């Protein structure tokens, strides 16, 4: 396929970090075996944590509901294998502190709950489909983990006309979505069809970065028959950020402080679409996901289909172990991922990758004075002036930081990545954002 001939779309700003995908891009998805213990945190999505509905000692099957959603912006949680609930207690969470979790001892059968029943999406109405998605605990699997049914429930006054499927995977090193597009093409397309029905719209566009020509080719071939468009996008970080993706594909800009539905768009990750297909056709809730285990600190990088709650150490063991001494354990990608205190933490619904760097992979820099080179401004996909915001943040001048639109920052990290003075720009901006929001709450 000649990508040059395709008209690659993109946004203004951004940059090109080394992509690191060669570690795992060609590795087919493998099913990760059962660990000794599964740790399922109650907080795995944006919104209220789920509420436990089993007791210690209960026998559960794969897919059994173990915690119910608390309110609309929340999601239920299900057991990811069959076994016994051996503890409900705080465990180390990827967020870096101990948070309530349900611990399951697998019985080795890995048997699905017999009460789970699938349905043919053609027989269900849009609202019934949405109820399936909600009951299955589907959340955005690109990493944001926003409950999907919320995104699918725009207020009556918002006209949605376009569904965008995010297959960009612009974070370096991660290849989970890439592999999904190659290996679960059918499920993704089926999920898209369901999403279209729920939203009652026709137009669906899959956005894929041009560094995945095989995925673009396969998706294009299979999507055509279902009237789903595939748009190849220029390789540039953060092409997969929601706002940048919408801009690239539709030319619309989401107004500051609002959601994509404001411009008639709903964005879903390709992995989420596949999970939706399983939820409806097979009745299976979201209990597993593909995780890329990668980085120079891993002997044999892989893409694994992982049960939610599997400890990270177990994932590393499936990849022939650590390659040298780890210096940074990152859940997610190198630009936006979160460092982990230990490999004891479990993989959760938003875990797209486990990336391990050794000391030698991480040069340490001494931050110097800003040389006003303007690179942070050129790289900012929101076109902010990170240097100005960060300076105000360091001086605790939060009103000024807000005037420079600190709250619009999407925390993509481009500014810090590119700053020759190696200033912690986005870190300072986060600090300012937190202070501005705290002030707003008290007023």
């Amino acid at each position, binding site marked *: 396929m000649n990508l040059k001939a395709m008209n690659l779309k993109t946004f203004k700003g951004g940059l090109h970090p080394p992509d690191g995908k060669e570690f795992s891009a060609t590795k087919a998805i493998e099913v990760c075996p059962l660990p000794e213990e599964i740790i399922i945190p109650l907080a795995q999505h944006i919104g209220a944590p789920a509420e436990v509905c089993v007791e210690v000692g209960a026998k559960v099957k794969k897919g059994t509901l173990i915690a119910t959603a608390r309110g609309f912006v929340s999601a239920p949680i299900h057991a990811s294998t069959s076994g016994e609930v051996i503890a409900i207690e705080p465990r180390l969470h990827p967020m*870096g502190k101990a948070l309530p979790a349900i611990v399951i001892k697998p019985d080795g059968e890995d048997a699905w709950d017999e009460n789970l029943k699938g349905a043919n999406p053609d027989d269900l109405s849009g609202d019934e489909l949405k109820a399936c998605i909600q009951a299955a605990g589907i959340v955005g699997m690109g990493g944001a983990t926003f409950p999907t049914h919320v995104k699918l429930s725009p207020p009556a006054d918002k006209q949605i006309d376009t569904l965008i499927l995010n297959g960009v995977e612009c974070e370096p090193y991660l290849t989970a979505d890439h592999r999904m597009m190659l290996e679960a093409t059918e499920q993704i397309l089926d999920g898209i069809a369901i999403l279209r029905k729920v939203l009652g719209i026709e137009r669906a566009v899959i956005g894929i970065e041009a560094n995945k020509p095989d995925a673009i080719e396969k998706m294009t071939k299979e999507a055509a028959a279902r009237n789903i468009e595939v748009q190849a996008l220029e390789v540039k970080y953060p092409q997969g950020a929601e706002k940048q993706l919408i801009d690239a594909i539709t030319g619309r800009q989401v107004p*500051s402080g609002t959601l994509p539905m404001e411009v008639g768009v709903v964005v879903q990750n390709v992995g989420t679409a596949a999970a939706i297909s399983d939820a409806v056709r097979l009745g299976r809730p979201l209990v597993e996901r593909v995780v890329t285990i990668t980085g120079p600190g891993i002997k044999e990088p892989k893409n694994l289909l992982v049960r939610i709650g599997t400890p990270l150490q177990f994932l590393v063991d499936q990849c022939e172990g650590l390659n040298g*001494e780890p210096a940074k354990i*990152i859940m997610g990608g190198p630009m936006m991922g979160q460092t982990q205190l230990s490999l004891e933490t479990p993989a959760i619904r938003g875990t797209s990758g486990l990336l391990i760097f050794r000391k030698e992979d991480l040069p340490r820099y001494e931050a110097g004075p800003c*040389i*006003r080179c*303007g690179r942070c401004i*050129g790289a900012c996909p929101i*076109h902010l002036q990170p240097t100005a915001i960060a300076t105000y943040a360091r001086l605790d001048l939060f009103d000024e930081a807000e005037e420079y639109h600190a709250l619009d920052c999407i925390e993509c990290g481009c500014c810090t990545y590119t700053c020759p003075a190696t200033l912690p720009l986005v870190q300072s901006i986060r600090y300012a954002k937190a202070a501005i929001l705290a002030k707003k709450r008290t007023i």
Partner: protein
Amino acid sequence: MENRLYLSSSPHIHSGETTDKVMRKVIYALLPATALSIYFFGLPALSVLLICTLGCMGFEALSCKLMSKPLALADGSAALTGVLLALNMPPTSSWWLALFGAAIAIFIGKQVYGGLGYNPFNPALVARVVLLISFPVQMTSWTAPAPLGSGLDAITAATPLGEMKTAVMLTGKLPELAHSGFLNYFTGNMAGSLGEVSAIALLLGGLYLLFKKVISWHIPVAFIGTVLVIGAIFWAVSPEIYPNPLFHLLTGGLLLGAFFMATDMVTSPVTDKGMLIFGFGCGLLTVLIRLFGGYPEGVSFAILLMNAATPLIDRFCHPKIYGQTEAKA
């Protein structure tokens, strides 16, 4: 193992393009011009270069020591200031003039404001202008090139711009050299300061910086473009007293200024729009000074004046933020 893990908030990787690498690339980009000026002006040029560069580095180290700040030589900015200063000096400058220039550049141009990143004016230009005003004779005694190995002695000569200014003032007409000799100007075979000589070498360095994305096109294009357009307008109106725009381009410090001095990051605006305004201002002031001012060359003054306007430009030029306009609608 656990306690040897780094915890930090994202991002976890860096481009690796740090300040010292940026400075080093600018120095590399100046190599062709420095080499050619040593070729044309011989050993005196080399000694000016060495004194300025080592002088700036020495004064930088001294001021860090005096102010008990960490030694900042590694960022390469002092060395770069030294090279730029040398390129702005007459090739036959005496050692004390070069050393004095280096001291002004570092102390008055940079360190009094707090060092790298805080100085409002380009340090090398501050030094050049202070020298020009304090030592007008020494700073304007130019020599004709005496290429290495040619056996020629350095003889006094005027710069093409200087000659033009004198001729226009005395006779009201452009001298012959404003109409010919462009090939010499292009290769750098003319009188001038070290770095004001070779258009081709400066262009080469400038393109390297653009290609390596060390600088963006906005300032050089706006600066040079403005000089060419305004120069062309005057030339079209009366070609007997106003030189051809190519003459503006190839003689004097325009290329050096546009690619290497005006693009100094610390002292120029940070936004694209701001850089265009800055470049335009530099170009306009340069032509006006060259054609109507008291000095034959206006590049240094133009850049310094625009340096002074930089905070104001930055205050009013903001990039158009994603999703902002719609929000108000």
